[in-house]
C-alpha cells in the first residue's frame, strides 16, 4: 500500500479520530503518547514503507515492525483493524473482558511482534532480528518505534552500539521524539540533547523530520529504507504528545492525563 500525501493525511486524521474514540470508551489506554506517533505508523503502514500481510502476520516475507513504545501505540488498534489484521468491531471492546486489545498492547494482538509493555526492550530484540535476517541472507527490513523517554533505559544503548558495530543497515529506529515522559519534559529529567548528534556519534545515519507531517515522514522512511550503506539508521520524528487535543498537547503531565469525555465528543464533532 502506497498512498498519496493527501490520502495519508486523511488516513492520519481518521486514525486520530478512532484513537480518541477508543480512549473515550477505554480511558485506561494512554492517549497522549498514542497521539504523537500516529503519522509515524500511518506512514509505515500506508505509505509503502513496510511489507506486510494481514492474512499472515508472521509471514517470513514481511518486514518486521517492533513497537517498543507499547503504551503509546493505541493508534495501532484502528490501523491494524483497518488493514484487516482483525475485525473493526474489536475496537469497541478494548480493555473489556475477552478482548485481546488491552490498555498496553501484547503480542497476542495480530500484527504485534514482541512484548511492549515494559519499555526499553524493543531496540535490542529488533537488533537481534536484524542480525538474524542478515545471517540468513534475507533482504527484509526491521523497523522499531521507540519513544525518546524510553531511551533512558540503558539496554537500548547496548543495542545501539552493537548495531553499528555489526553494520546492521537493515535496522531502522524511529524515535517518537515528543520530549515528555511520565513526570515531565525529558529535557528536565535526563536530557538527550540532540538525539541526532548522539546517535550519529554512535555510528548511525540519522534523519530528522516533523513527525506530524505524514508526507515528510513517509519520504524520510522510504529514503532510509533504500539506503543500505553499512550503517543502522534512525529517524528522529519531532512530535507533540497529545497532538491535537487542547490541554493535553505538549502538557508535561499529559501521559497521565485523561481528557473529559465531553471534550473528546466535542473534538470528534468539530473535526469530522
Amino acid at each position, binding site marked *: 500500500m502506497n498512498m498519496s500525501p493527501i490520502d495519508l493525511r486523511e488516513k492520519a486524521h481518521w486514525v486520530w479520530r478512532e484513537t480518541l474514540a477508543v480512549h473515550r470508551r477505554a480511558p485506561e489506554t494512554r492517549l497522549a503518547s498514542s497521539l504523537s506517533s500516529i503519522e509515524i505508523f500511518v506512514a509505515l503502514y500506508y505509505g509503502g514503507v513496510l511489507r506486510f500481510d494481514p492474512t499472515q502476520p508472521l509471514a517470513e516475507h514481511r518486514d518486521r515492525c517492533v513497537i517498543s513504545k507499547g503504551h503509546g501505540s493505541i493508534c495501532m488498534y484502528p490501523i491494524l483493524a483497518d488493514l484487516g489484521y482483525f475485525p473493526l468491531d474489536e475496537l469497541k471492546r478494548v480493555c473489556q473482558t475477552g478482548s485481546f486489545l488491552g490498555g498496553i498492547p501484547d503480542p497476542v494482538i495480530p500484527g504485534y*511482534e514482541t512484548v511492549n509493555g515494559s519499555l526499553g526492550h524493543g531496540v535490542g530484540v529488533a537488533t537481534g532480528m536484524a542480525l538474524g535476517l542478515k545471517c540468513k541472507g534475507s533482504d527484509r527490513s526491521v523497523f522499531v518505534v521507540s519513544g525518546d523517554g524510553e531511551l533512558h533505559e540503558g539496554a537500548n544503548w547496548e543495542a545501539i552500539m552493537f548495531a553499528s558495530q555489526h553494520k546492521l543497515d537493515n535496522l531502522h529506529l524511529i524515535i517518537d521524539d515528543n520530549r515528555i515522559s511520565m513526570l515531565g519534559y525529558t529535557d528536565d529529567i535526563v536530557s538527550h540533547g540532540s538525539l541526532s548528534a548522539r546517535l550519529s556519534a554512535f555510528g548511525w545515519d540519522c534523519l530528522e523530520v516533523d513527525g506530524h507531517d505524514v508526507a515528510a515522514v513517509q519520504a524520510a522512511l522510504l529514503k532510509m529504507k533504500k539506503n543500505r550503506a553499512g550503517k543502522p539508521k534512525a529517524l528522529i520524528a519531532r512530535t507533540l504528545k497529545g497532538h491535537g487535543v487542547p490541554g493535553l498537547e505538549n502538557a508535561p503531565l499529559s501521559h497521565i492525563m485523561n481528557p473529559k469525555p465531553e471534550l473528546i465528543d466535542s473534538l470528534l464533532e468539530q473535526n469530522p
Partner: protein
Amino acid sequence: MSIKPLAMRDVLLDRIWRAMAEDAKIYFVSADFGSPVLDKIRADFPDRFVNVGIAEQNLINISAGLALEGYTVFAYAIAPFITMRCYEQIRVSLALLSEVRPMNVNLIGVGAGYSYVVSGPTHQCYEDLTLMRALPNFRVLSPSDHISAGALFDRCASTKGPKYLRFDAQVLPVIYENGAPDLDVGFHIHSTGKDVCLIATGYMLHTALNVAANLTAAGHSVGIIDLFDISNFAADQLQAVLSSYAGIVTLEEGFRGRGGVDSMFFEFIARRGLSTRMLNIGVEGGYRFELGSREELHEQVGIGPQSVLSSVTTFVQSLSD
C-alpha cells in the same frame, strides 16, 4: 577404563561446535566470555558467533531476536550475570514472549554456587535457582558432571522454549561413567535406602555421595538422588520413590530457605500429602567475603561434608525419636 573428568562447558561447547557444522540454524552468542573450545566455534563459524561485549541485557534481547528469526540460540556468560544482570530481559523477551511465539534460547551460565572460589560474592551464584525456577516456560537444568552436562545438548537442540543451564566452573569428578542419566525423568537414583534420602543438585551431589558413605558406615540406610532437571522432573515417579523414606534431605549450593530447591520440596511434600519429614541444606546466612578453598567456604556456610554429615546425622536420629 575410567573417564577423564572435563569441564562441563567444554563438553557442551564441543557438542555445539559439532552440531553447528551440520545445522546452519544454530547461533552462539557470548557476553565476552570464552573457553578454549569456544575458540573453535569462533574460528569455524564466524557468521554464527557473536560477542555482544560485557552487555548481558543485550545478550538476552539479541538472543530473543535471533530466536524469533528461527535460530536455535546458545547464549553464554558467567552464571550470576546471565541470570541477574538481565533478569527483566529474561522475563519479558524469553519467558513471557515464548508464551506466544515459539523460540529456542538456551542460557549457559558458568559459575554455579561457589565454583568461582576466590572471586567473591559478585561472581559466586547462590540465588539463580530461586530466580530462574520462578519463571513460567523456563526449564532449569543443573548437571553434576560433564557427562550429564554434555547430554543436555540434545534436549536443548530438540526442545523449544527458554532454558537455563547451571554449570559448575570447576572440573568435577565423573559421576555417570556408564552413560548419561535419562533426561526425560529429570532425576537419577544413585542408591536406594530405607532411612533417609539425600536429594542433591549440581556440585552438591558430590557432597551427598561423600556424606552418604559416612552415614552408611555408621549403619544408616541412605538413598541418593541427583535432581538435574529442577523444573520438569517426573513428579509422580519421584513421589513414589520418596514415599518409602521417613526423611528426605535437600542439598543445594544456594541460599537456604530462600525459594530454591528446598522450597520446591517443602511445597512438593505439602501438595502431595507426603508424611515424610524434610531437612534443607543450603547456604546459611548472607554474603561473605572470607577466602579459602571451596570445601572451607562450604563448611563456613553449612554445606561442607562435615557440616552436612553432622546435620543429617542429627536429622536421622530425630526420625526415630
